[in-house]
């Protein structure tokens, strides 16, 4: 017989209260805003799904979403292969290991807004090392006026800031591969590519999926760095979803549409993360059921 014991609820109550205050209540406030309109004086009018329809149909949202997706795509396309390459090139033993690890960890320790400020100054044509050098080489570079330059600067900044994370994750995966695998491959006469494709890549697959997930979520939510460097400009060229959202909510004080947009934004990230998670666990589940069969 099942024993019912309501005392358990008292045990989890503190957690429920904390989660309610920190997550559920603010989220519900946003939901509340997203279905109402206000003209101030704390007067609200029910508008239903109107804000959602307006946001989903608006060109401004589409453009910001496209820019964000493009940014995330470029970031992943650069940082993942680059991170793997750097991890493969890192030394395996000796003093070099510690030196490399410390150097790799350095960018990760710098706060977002400081990174933004560093690159904002670094790229300035008048006083920045990068901007000034490029200018004196005769290259026309100005991230405050040229769209391409602005994008290049933001991507370079993010690659500089976050590739180390991919490197460290991959390096940990590579370090876990026993030396005998390489020995066996040498005896087999396997090429460098075959070693990577059939030994190293399968062995770091799991950390790679985690790196991919983290870098996607982070780059998709990026706010501080582009805000500090370009402020979303020139024009709207680097106005990502997050910057757009803040402009709408705080700049224009359009609380209803901004709330609807945050919910859509949140759902997109949730959806993509769920897809990643499912893809990740499909593999594990298959392996588990297969091994269960194999061992029975």
């Amino acid at each position, binding site marked *: 017989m099942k024993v019912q014991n309501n005392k358990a609820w008292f045990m989890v109550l503190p957690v429920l209260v904390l989660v309610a205050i920190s997550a559920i209540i603010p989220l519900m406030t946003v939901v509340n805003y997203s279905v109402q309109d206000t003209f101030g004086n704390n007067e609200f009018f029910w508008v239903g799904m109107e804000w959602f329809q307006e946001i989903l149909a608006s060109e401004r949202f589409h453009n910001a979403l496209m820019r964000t997706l493009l940014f995330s795509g470029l970031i992943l396309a650069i940082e993942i292969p680059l991170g793997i390459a750097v991890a493969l090139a890192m030394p395996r033993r000796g003093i070099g290991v510690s030196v490399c690890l410390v150097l790799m960890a350095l960018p990760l320790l710098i706060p977002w807004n400081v990174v933004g400020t560093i690159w904002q100054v670094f790229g300035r044509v008048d006083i920045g090392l990068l901007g000034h050098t490029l200018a004196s080489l005769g290259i026309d570079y100005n991230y405050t006026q040229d769209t391409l330059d602005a994008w290049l600067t933001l991507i370079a900044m993010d690659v500089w800031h976050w590739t180390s994370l991919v490197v460290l994750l991959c390096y940990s995966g590579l370090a876990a591969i*026993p030396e*005998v*695998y390489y*020995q*066996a491959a*040498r*005896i*087999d*006469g*396997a090429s460098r590519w075959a070693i990577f494709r*059939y*030994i190293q*890549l*399968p*062995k770091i*697959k799991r950390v790679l999926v985690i790196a991919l997930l983290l870098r996607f979520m982070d780059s998709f939510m990026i706010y501080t760095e582009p805000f500090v460097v370009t402020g979303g400009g020139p024009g709207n060229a680097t106005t990502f979803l997050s910057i757009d959202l803040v402009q709408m909510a705080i700049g224009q004080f359009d609380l209803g549409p901004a709330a609807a947009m945050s919910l859509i934004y949140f759902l997109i990230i949730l959806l993509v993360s769920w897809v990643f998670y499912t893809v990740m666990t499909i593999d594990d589940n298959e*392996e588990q059921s*297969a*091994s269960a*069969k*194999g*061992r029975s």
Partner: protein
Amino acid sequence: MLELQNISRKIGDEVYLDNVSLRLNRGELNILLGPTLSGKTSLMRVMAGLDKPDSGDVRFDGKSVLGMPVQKRNVAMVYQQFINYPSLTVFENIASPLRVARVEKSQIVKRVDEVAELLQLQAVLQRTPDSLSGGQQQRVALARALIRQADLVLLDEPLANLDYKLREELRAELPVLFAEMGAVLVYATTEPTEALLLGGNTACMHQGKIAQFGSTLELYRHPEALRSAEIFSDPPLNITALECSAGKLQIQGNKQIIDLPFNSLANGDYTLGIRPHHLRLEKMGTDDIALNGSVTVTEITGSESFVHFEFENRPWVALLHGIEEFSENEIVRFYVRPRDVLVFDSHDKLVVEHCANELSPEQ
């Protein structure tokens, strides 16, 4: 035939291999026996061509292969860990050496099927190694070694990571599987029992040196030197100092003086060696040698008892049949037949051995 001539290898100040010379024939099973860090794996790496010796020559079928890179030497190696390509199916794993060698497709399928049948892997050919049991994974690794039809097959403690039931099964199969290949077969192990069960030839290794090389059973029965007797004894060989003066060989202990019935030895210091299973509790013959020991601990495995005791300040052990229990510090009298006793001279060379007519080491 694989010939190693005066192979030495050092890394920094550490000597990995010290003047090793061996001659291994095709179609024979050669065992490298020695404790961990005795140089078994280092020697295998030199044989395979993974490492270059500092001095000495490696000759295969009469030709020096020192300059030849490992992938050109047609070597197969199986390790203690189960090494397979993790993302490839069992079929592709077994086929991989043939793919590298660019063997025709229909030929590949045929040969993989043959080898899979030998190793009972037909049912799992489409699975990945991760989903297999340890025994099956090692079978896949063995299949990869088998399919290459290599000239030199190196098995580096291949059964060490398997549980004992699987070990016994594979140990019985292994020599048969590789015997027909006509390759030079080398098998490294730390366990004397495993070497005895496998038979063939054994090279006893210690600190990068070959202590003795010869037929496994012969080597067990007639260890030339104290070192090979020690390596080839599990539990460890019981030893104590002996002295010979005026033609009388004696253990001159603190509490007991024991005469040994061996004459015709020159005066000087000797070492006595007795294998643990040669010690008994009851007298077997009139000339048995009696030894008193003080028991420290008794381990009982069910049908055998390992009695650890102190004999003249040295830890000794007796392997007795049946269940024998003693309390701590109890003085127990053990007997050993003179024919079971090994006596080594001051250079650790065997001078007296009476166990020649013993048939099986288990008796």
